[in-house]
């Protein structure tokens, strides 16, 4: 068994072959060097309550234009809305709806546990780990961006974003 070489080679092959979505993870700040705004690293938490779940993502604005995310949509949910979790002055975990999320030029905004998330409610499908979820994000400047999120175990996205810091 050569566990050390094989997995490394497999991962390298995966990165090289899948191009687009994964290369965004490769370096810091403004990976979308082609000057566009992209939504990447999109995952959907496997719903623990079948009614509701959270979408995690990174908005990578490689353009010179300031933009703002104003809406999200998915065929798997009746409602999709933007929220920010936080802790209030008394130490309570809270959540507030957010009208829009601004993204400065050449910067990234990460939606991760404890912070920003898209809340999907009234899910009309059973979502299992590995399922692909179509999502549409509406930006004031970039317009509509459609992506596919992957359903992951809750917490998996948190671990990834922490490694990215």
């Amino acid at each position: 068994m050569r566990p050390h070489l094989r997995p490394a080679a497999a991962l390298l092959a995966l990165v090289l072959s899948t191009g687009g979505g994964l290369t965004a993870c490769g370096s810091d700040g403004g990976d979308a060097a082609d000057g566009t705004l992209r939504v990447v690293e999109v995952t959907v938490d496997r719903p623990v309550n079948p009614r509701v779940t959270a979408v995690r993502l990174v908005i990578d604005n490689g353009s010179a234009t300031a933009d703002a995310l104003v809406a999200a949509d998915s065929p798997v949910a009746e409602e999709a809305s933007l929220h920010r979790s936080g802790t209030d002055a008394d130490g309570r975990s809270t959540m507030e709806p957010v009208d829009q999320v601004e993204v400065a030029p050449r910067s990234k905004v990460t939606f991760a546990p404890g912070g920003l998330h898209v809340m999907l409610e009234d899910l009309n499908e059973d979502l299992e780990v590995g399922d692909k979820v179509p999502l549409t994000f509406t930006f004031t400047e970039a317009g509509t961006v459609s992506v596919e999120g992957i359903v992951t175990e809750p917490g998996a996205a948190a671990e990834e974003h922490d490694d990215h810091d």
Partner: protein
Amino acid sequence: MTDRLTRRRFLGAGSAVAAGLALGACNLDRSSKPDRAGEADASWGGELFDPPLEKPPVVLQTVDGDDFDLRADTEGKLSFLFFGYTNCPDQCPLYLTSLGAAMRAINGPGSKAQVLFVGVDTKRDTPDVLKDYVEGIHPTFIGLTGTPEKIAEANDFLKFPSIEIGEPDAEGTYLVGHYGRAVAYTPDNLGHRLYGFDTRSQEFAKDLPRLAEGVYE
């Protein structure tokens, strides 16, 4: 490299490994963060609470309608007490699933911790909803309910920030505010550690065996 793959496998779910690998490729060119690389086995998840918390002298109800005495029914056991609500999309599911995954990944007394989840949003956290929610995470998790007053009594005994159920908006949606940390009670019946929603399953897995033995720092 092998460490990262081992960690993914450790979390238990095969599909999570697949998803983890897809995203894990992003980490190829990252050097380990210093604290991760230098982490000694003596490190702990969550935070130490000193002086420790006692258990609320309150009787709530299980999802099957039986009384559950927060003191008598947890006597001498390793237990975790969570306050949350089932429609919480962002935090409650995370540390509950992390704890469940950790308990599945290890053997020994730590894997048999008594996990209590009090659904503070009594309007939506009905016994049936609570039961499906907690047992879907781990078959031994215990969902607890009660009157808002009893739940508040238990919460407030711990001096946690009070539970806040917001006013419904035009669509009937309302927000729920609750303390985002769970208490770990060791077999001495004292809560020595608090765990936040960002606790990783690997951290729980490392702490559970020690907590089960009464070690908490």
